[in-house]
């Protein structure tokens, strides 16, 4: 216990003197960009989950490869998966069994509650994304610095990405059989934050929305329902940055 108190006191005293500051000055624009992404290739690995859908619950692994054309623009290729690709499981009637293969695909309690009330949503509401491959454009207009309790600096990039690609989709019937509902063009839009820890390493937080038009046979199997489906993911990831150049250092008090 004595060691803890000693440690805390030492830290406070030494940090206090180290963080002595200069008088306020007017900020015009943020300078001294310590982290540059121009001409760098960025490989990112994400884990994510869907957050807004009433009935479906996705968990997904995602790999993105970005090439930064300059500090503001990048092109991005991505693969997002909630299911082992090109594997469907055992054939049963017009569908497949195999929940393990679809490791990131499931339904929320809301569906169970609805079914216990002898109700059911449209099958189009139950369609889930198995795999997605896409191409995006990334725009990073905002570079920022944050202080946490005035103790240390965090360098960040805020960005938006937009693009599209192809997604395979499936839904699960009440008898636990997964029915393939086809491959769709799917659009995606993302707001993201990149936190630089090193010039070659960063953390990323993406909020990414995927939109597609699901056309699925209705519950009474007498026709098809078409619905615009939107699934919002929150994704956390790590990035490795290769190549490029170190930023030019321009001294500034900001």
């Amino acid at each position, binding site marked *: *216990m*004595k*060691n*803890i108190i*000693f*440690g*805390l006191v*030492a*830290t406070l005293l*030494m*940090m206090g003197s*180290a*963080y002595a*500051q*200069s008088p*306020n*000055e*007017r*900020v*015009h*624009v*943020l300078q*001294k*960009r*310590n982290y540059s992404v121009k001409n760098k290739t960025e490989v990112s690995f994400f884990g994510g989950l869907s*957050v*807004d859908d*009433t009935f479906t619950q996705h968990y997904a692994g995602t790999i993105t490869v970005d090439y930064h054309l300059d500090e*503001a623009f990048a092109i991005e290729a991505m693969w997002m998966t909630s299911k082992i690709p090109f594997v469907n499981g055992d054939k049963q009637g017009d569908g497949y069994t195999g929940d393990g293969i679809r490791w990131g695909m499931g339904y929320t309690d*809301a569906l169970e*509650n*609805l079914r*216990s*009330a*002898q*109700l*059911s*949503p*449209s099958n189009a*509401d139950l369609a889930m994304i198995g795999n997605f491959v896409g191409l995006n454009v990334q725009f990073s*207009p*905002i*570079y*920022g*610095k*944050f*202080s*946490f*309790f*005035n*103790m*240390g*600096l*965090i360098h*960040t990039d*805020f960005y938006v990405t937009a693009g599209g690609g192809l997604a395979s989709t499936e839904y699960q019937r009440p008898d636990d059989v997964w029915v393939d509902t086809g491959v769709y063009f799917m659009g995606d839009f993302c707001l993201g934050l990149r936190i630089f820890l090193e010039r070659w390493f960063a953390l990323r937080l993406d909020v990414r929305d995927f939109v597609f038009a699901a056309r699925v046979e209705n*519950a*009474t199997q007498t026709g098809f329902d078409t619905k615009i489906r939107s699934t919002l993911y929150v994704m956390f990831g790590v990035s490795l940055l290769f190549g490029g150049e170190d930023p030019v250092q321009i001294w500034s*008090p*900001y």
Partner: protein
Amino acid sequence: MRIGRFGSALFAVFCLLYGPANAGAAEADEPILMNKLHDLSGRFEISLTPSMSILDKYTRHVGTSLGLGYSINDYLGVELDVAYNFISGDRKLLDEILRTATTLDGVERLALTDLKHMTWSASLGVVFSPFYGKLNFSSEFAVTIHFYMVAGAGVAEYRYSELRHSPPFDPLFGDNQFHKQEVTYPVKPTGHIGGGLRFHFNENWGMKVEIRDILFYDQGYKGQINEGLGVQERNIDDFVHTVFLRLGAFYAF
């Protein structure tokens, strides 16, 4: 909680090495964000924030809130918030499910916690702002921001649509149709938790974007549960969450 001698020694070494090392590095390499353009300390703030609910199952809300805040120092403040939802009701999804149902026999078994929607709320909260930052928009102009978290308690009024279905050949509502009767709950104690960003455009004016979850503990309503032995009626206790995305303006003085 027992930490142990080894753990406390390790912590002391960590504090000695990590704290000053970081502080020293910051001083030698580049200054911490020192030229703080927008202080919060000792200032009042009035905010008007239109809001909409997100992450709902069967309900929707659109409204606005009026807030008054006071910052005790740069990191800690208090706020009073009053909100009214001028759109508060069921989502189209619920009506669509009921309209296309092959039977409405079990409609009374839908969980009421999913159907409750808020009409107004009033709350007191504590605002905690640990992050201060500067953003550079396309190298043209700089905006200073605070990241903050908020938590507190208050009261709110909730309503819900009691779902009923009419039996075959019902003269009043028609054959096998659903109908809704709105029920107003008594005012309930609520808690809230959230976080957001405050953008300062000049000395007085700025913008806030925030996500706030307002919740209450819904205690002991009668629910019908479909169990192995058939439909049972029993008390259900559950939290009712309403998550708002709020985007508004503030004036600080």
